[in-house]
C-alpha cells in the first residue's frame, strides 16, 4: 500500500481516538477563549430582561435526555435569569420520554438556590399527549388540559395557578427544544394567539429557526451549546456550556483538518490513477 492509500484507508478507530483526545485535552489544559455574542442571543436576553420584575413566564422543556448537553444549560441559564428578576415560572414538557422528569429536576434544584417556593413562584405542569392539542387547549384554559401538576396536585391548590388561567396571563414563552415542537409553538401559539415566543434549540435545528427570527415569529434564538454559552455569559455565570467551548473549538479544528486531509488523499490518489490511465 502506498502512503496515500494508507492515509485514505486509516482505521476509523484512530480517528475516534483523535476525537477523544481533542475533547479531553482542553479539560486538562484550560484555554477559555472569550465567547462572542450573536444578535439573536442578545435579542432573546433583552426580551426577557425587559419584562417587568415579577412577570409570569412559561419555560418549556421540550427536549429528550439525549440532547441535554446542549439544552439543559439553556434551561438553567434561563431559570437563573427569570428567578433573579423574581419572575413566576410555569414549566411544562411536550416530550413523553423524560421531559417532565428533567423539568422537575432542573427547576427544583435552581429554585432552591434562589429560595423560590413551589406553587407560589414556580409550577411544573408536567406532560400531556398530543402537543398541538395541548398548545391550542392552553389558549382557552390551562386547567382544561392540565387539571393537576406533574406530581398530581390539583391546580386549584396551587396559588400561582390562580393567577394563570390561559395565555393571556403569560408575558413570554421560552421554548427550549430539540425537535419540531418549537415550529408549532411558533405557528400556533405565536401566530394565532400573539404570545411572544423565544427559542433555545439544538445546533441541528438552529439554521431553520433563522427564518422565524427574521419574520418576527421568534423573539431571539440560542443555537446549540454555543448559544447556551452566550446566554450564560449574558446572565453572568460560567456553566457547563461555557466550560465545553474549548473542547468544541478543538474538535471543530480537528474535523476541518480531517475534511482537508481526506480530500487531499482523495485527489492525490485520483491524480495517480489518472496518470496511470493516461501514461
Amino acid at each position, binding site marked *: 500500500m502506498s502512503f496515500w492509500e494508507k492515509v485514505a484507508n486509516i482505521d476509523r478507530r484512530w*480517528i475516534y481516538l483523535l476525537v477523544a483526545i481533542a475533547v479531553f485535552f482542553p479539560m486538562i489544559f484550560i484555554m477559555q*477563549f472569550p465567547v462572542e455574542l450573536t444578535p439573536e442571543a442578545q435579542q432573546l436576553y433583552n426580551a426577557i430582561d425587559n419584562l417587568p420584575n415579577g412577570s409570569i413566564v412559561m419555560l418549556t422543556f421540550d427536549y429528550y435526555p439525549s440532547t*441535554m448537553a446542549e439544552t439543559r444549560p439553556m434551561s438553567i441559564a434561563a431559570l437563573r435569569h427569570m428567578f433573579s428578576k423574581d419572575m413566576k415560572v410555569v414549566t411544562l414538557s411536550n416530550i413523553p420520554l*423524560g421531559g417532565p422528569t428533567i423539568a422537575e429536576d432542573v427547576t427544583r434544584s435552581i429554585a432552591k438556590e434562589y429560595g423560590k417556593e413551589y406553587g407560589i413562584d414556580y409550577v411544573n405542569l408536567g406532560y400531556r399527549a398530543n402537543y398541538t392539542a395541548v398548545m391550542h387547549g392552553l389558549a382557552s384554559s390551562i386547567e382544561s388540559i392540565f387539571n393537576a401538576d406533574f*406530581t398530581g396536585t390539583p391546580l386549584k391548590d396551587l396559588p400561582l395557578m390562580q393567577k394563570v388561567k390561559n395565555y393571556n396571563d403569560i408575558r413570554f414563552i421560552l421554548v427550549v427544544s430539540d425537535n419540531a415542537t418549537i415550529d408549532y409553538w411558533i405557528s400556533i401559539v405565536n401566530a394565532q394567539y400573539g404570545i411572544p415566543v423565544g427559542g433555545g434549540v439544538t445546533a441541528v435545528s438552529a439554521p*431553520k429557526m433563522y427564518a422565524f427570527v427574521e419574520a418576527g415569529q421568534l423573539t431571539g434564538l440560542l443555537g446549540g451549546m454555543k448559544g447556551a454559552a452566550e446566554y450564560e455569559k449574558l446572565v453572568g455565570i460560567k456553566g457547563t456550556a461555557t466550560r465545553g*467551548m474549548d473542547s468544541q*473549538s478543538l474538535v*471543530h479544528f480537528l474535523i476541518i483538518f480531517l475534511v482537508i*486531509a481526506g480530500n487531499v488523499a482523495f485527489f492525490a490518489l485520483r491524480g495517480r490513477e489518472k496518470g496511470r490511465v493516461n501514461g
Partner: protein
Amino acid sequence: MRTTVPVIVAFLAGIAMVISFFFAPERTILGQFQENLLQWVTIVGGFTLVLGVFSIVRVNARAVSRRNDGWIYKLATVVSVFAMALPSMLPTSSSTTFGKIFYSIVPESWASAFGTNPGSIYDWLFNYLDSPMMETMFATLAFYIASAAYRAFRARSAEATLLLITACIVMLWRVPMGEAFLRLFSDNIPEYINAFVMKGFNMSVQRGIIIGAALGMASMSLRIILGIERTYMGKG
C-alpha cells in the same frame, strides 16, 4: 361501516378545529365543544404511546420463552420494562381505596418510592440509568461524524466543494477559537457570516423548504379531513 364511521369521525374532529379558528372560543358553545375536544384528544393520544410498549414486551417475552439467540438480553429488556413500570403505577398514599388496601400490606414509609414523583424508584431509574444511557447513545454520533468527515466528505464537484467550504467556515465561526482565528483577517468576518451566510443564503433556503413543506402539510391535512387519504387506518 368499518371505513365510513372513521372517515366521518375524522371529518367532524378536523372540521371542528378549522371552524373554531374563526370564532373566539370563550364566547361560543363551539368554544366549549372545542375545549372538550382538545382535552379528549390529549387523553386518547396518551394511549397510543403505550401501544408500542405492549409490542416490545410481547416480542421480547416470546424470544425469551423460545430461548432464541441472545435471549438473556431480551430478558433484561422485559425485566427493565417492569422494573420501571410497576413501581410507578403503585399508589403514593392511602387516600384512595386501592391505596388503603396496598398500605395495609406494605409499610406507608415506603410510599415515596412509588409513583413518578422525585425520589421514587421510577425517578431514580430514569436519572441514573435511562438518561445517561440515552445521552451516551447519541454522543457516539460525534465519533461517526468525524469518521465520515474524513472518509466520505469529498469535493467531487463544484457544488460539493461549495458545501464543504461553507461548512468549514460555519464550523470556525461557531466556536470561540475559530471566531478569534477569523478575526485575525478582519474584525467583521463573523458578523458578515451571520448576516450573509446564515440570515441570507441559509435563511432563504430554509424559508423555501418551510413554505414547501407547509403546502404539503396543508394539502395532506385537507385530504385526511375530506376522507381522501385513509392510509392511517391500516389494513383490515
